[in-house]
């Protein structure tokens, strides 16, 4: 009995502090009414924030000559879909909708190819898919669309992506042109080849050939450095495919995991040798324009509540999206109008943005947009852009998002907001703001060398 009394004593001790009342309280953190530009970090996270938990892409390969010249477009889509499921561990049947941006492919056939790719990637028949086309911003439009649908409550988990095989679907106009285009200057300008719009931007806003070549060389230099440093490794999905030898017709199995458009040795001087292709005496050359490319990318979006429920790491938060119209004859100025619109919508100023991914359709329009907005060049396309990597039209927006989010992850707390933007053929621009605040997950600890103690947890050691 003595023993029982002792046991009772010990167990009663466990309830001792119950008499204390409330445990020592910490200061309650109330949401701040200050805007996002406040110097301190916002800490009020909303469960209905739309967050990105996975972003990946295939390598970008030169059309007709690159690694994907013999790869069917559905295989590219299936590769990124499969990887998205693998990375996140989300069961495919939980995905509410899939949306792919695609530009050149025949519309109905491409939608069908996306459906085929879903089955090849192991999705059940219950998961729907559709395609969107806002020209060069289709990949970003898909992300905005899925984010909006999640916000609207149509579903909680969605996949957005983009795809383009410019090998299979080169740029072409089918059928006759409406003779009434002559009635409107803008309607007529919609028919201008993109290269001519670039010449227009260069002429109208005085962007010299030297400036364009310097910008193009920078793109190659940064992309080559990023590739050499393995910075694209996280975002690229290796694709096992076949390559046919163009002479012998012999088929070879290969794994494509490297962008093949980057030319490391490119200098402004070497680009200066090239002849203008669109206009006699012009300044737009093959070297300072984006490359014609094949590729696909996909992003997995869900509500923050869902990501927390699943314990998934959050790469970034989708904050805002804006698409705007500009004169078709100078369609390249799109980002200069779209970026301020999206940034303002997010309640931010341009100074708040730490990294910009601005599509380099042409060096002329990219340089103009950066100069017009007065952006710090160090924050723009830190890993190169479409001039070096290529511009698979429908894929680009999703590709830029993957590149942006991983760059922001590498920068840790040094990068809180990022912007993806591009110009759009026929005269538009689009931009989206992503946040990587204090509420997103730290990069995996494996990235930091464990011998270096004393580093902050978001430090990146390369």
């Amino acid at each position, binding site marked *: 009995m003595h023993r029982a009394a002792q046991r009772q004593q010990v167990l009663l*001790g466990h309830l001792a*502090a119950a008499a204390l009342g409330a*445990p020592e309280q*910490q200061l309650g*953190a109330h949401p701040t009414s200050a805007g996002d530009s406040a110097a301190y970090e916002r800490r009020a996270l909303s469960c209905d924030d739309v967050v990105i938990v996975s972003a990946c892409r295939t390598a970008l390969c030169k059309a007709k000559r690159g690694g994907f010249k013999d790869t069917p477009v559905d295989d590219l889509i299936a590769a990124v879909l499969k990887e998205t499921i693998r990375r996140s561990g989300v069961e495919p049947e939980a995905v509410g909708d899939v949306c792919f941006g695609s530009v050149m492919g025949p519309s109905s056939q491409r939608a069908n190819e996306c459906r085929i790719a879903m089955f090849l990637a192991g999705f059940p028949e219950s998961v729907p898919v559709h395609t969107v086309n806002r020209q060069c911003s289709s990949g970003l439009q898909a992300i905005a669309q899925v984010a909006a649908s999640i916000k609207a409550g149509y579903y909680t988990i969605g996949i957005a992506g983009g795809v383009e095989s410019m090998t299979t679907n080169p740029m072409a106009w089918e059928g006759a042109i409406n003779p009434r285009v002559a009635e409107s200057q803008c309607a007529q300008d919609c028919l201008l080849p993109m290269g001519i719009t670039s010449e227009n931007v260069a002429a109208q806003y005085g962007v010299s050939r030297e400036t364009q070549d310097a910008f193009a060389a920078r793109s190659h230099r940064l992309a080559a450095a990023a590739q050499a440093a393995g910075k694209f490794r996280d975002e690229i999905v290796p694709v096992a495919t076949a390559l046919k030898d163009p002479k012998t017709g012999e088929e070879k199995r290969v794994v494509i995991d490297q962008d093949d458009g980057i030319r490391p040795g490119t200098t402004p001087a070497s680009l200066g040798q090239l002849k203008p292709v669109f206009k006699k005496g012009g300044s737009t050359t093959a070297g300072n324009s984006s490359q014609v490319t094949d590729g696909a990318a996909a992003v997995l979006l869900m509500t923050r509540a869902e990501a927390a429920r699943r314990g998934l790491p959050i790469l970034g938060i989708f904050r805002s999206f804006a698409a705007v119209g500009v004169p078709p004859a100078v369609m390249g100025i799109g980002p200069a109008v779209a970026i301020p619109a999206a940034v303002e919508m997010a309640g931010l100023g341009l100074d708040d943005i730490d990294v910009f991914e601005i599509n380099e359709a042409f060096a002329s329009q990219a340089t103009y947009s950066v100069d017009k907005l007065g952006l710090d060049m160090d924050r723009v396309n830190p890993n190169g852009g479409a001039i070096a990597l290529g511009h698979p039209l429908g894929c680009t927006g999703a590709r830029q998002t993957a590149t942006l989010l991983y760059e922001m992850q590498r920068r840790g707390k040094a990068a809180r907001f990022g912007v993806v933007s591009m110009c759009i053929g026929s005269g538009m621009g689009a931009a989206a703001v992503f946040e990587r605040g204090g509420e997103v997950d730290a990069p995996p600890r494996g990235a930091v060398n464990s011998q270096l103690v004393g580093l902050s947890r978001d430090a990146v050691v390369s």
Partner: protein
Amino acid sequence: MPGFHTQFQGYAVRFSPFEDGKLAVATSQNYGIIGNGRQYVLQMGPGGITEWRSFDTADGLYDCVWSEANENILVSASGDGSIKVWDVAAPPQANPLRSFEEHTHEVYSLHWNQVRRDCFLSGSWDDTIKLWSLDAPGSLRTFAEHTYCVYAAQWNPAAADVFLSASGDCTVKVWDLRQPRPTLSLAAHRYEVLAADWCKYNDCVIATGSVDKSIKIWDVRMPKRELATLLGHTYAVRRVLFSPHAETLVASCSYDMTVRLWDYAAPEDALVRIWDHHSEFAVGLDWSTLVEGLLASCGWDEMTFAWHMNGDPRAS
């Protein structure tokens, strides 16, 4: 199928590290104050949780642990100071295989070494921790530095020689078998520390749970100040366990009858879930290492539950 009803009050539940459907539950009669004990081995199936084996003991059982080396070996901690070793494949009359009788008071915790797999620790109300191997007739070492009951002793998941102990003397000590004394003595709480565990992905991070109702997260390299304090339990925290599958997820159970899930990465918003399926003290808790997100709990309401962290224990 709402859980499994044990005849006595539950004190500890453990998933088998070998078979994803097996659960061991240690129970005691009369809330462990006086009376017998029973070690259950339960089987989770599509029809619910069913009894597969049970072994009776003369005194109450406070903890149990599966061997990491042999799927049939189960060890129980008894109120009479003995440690019982069971061969669950053998019938009750062939058991226990061994009874280690060295502790002079109640044995309250057991933990098997997950790196070397050949030894285990026991923590007792005689203020000591003992190191055991099934191959040796008696304890290999005794660690006597605490000044009050030892409530938990947990091996480090990465270093085979390192373990921690949590005690009613309000300290948590970190030990290295190669050292004679503790390598760290952490004054973790102002009240008794009932529970502690190592993070499975960062071998320097520990969590402690106390009578002061709080859970604290520490980096043992920086013992001056905790990394985070998780407040919410309204009575003493009885067990705290890091998830084997996510670095910052922590589960806890408490005398306030709740089981809670925390993510200490966002300390001011750390509480992820609360389950109130127990109607008495929630005392036993475990994560499955084989099925991600699977939890089990038992309590003084004589109920044992197993459920997925995204679900409801009463529904699964």
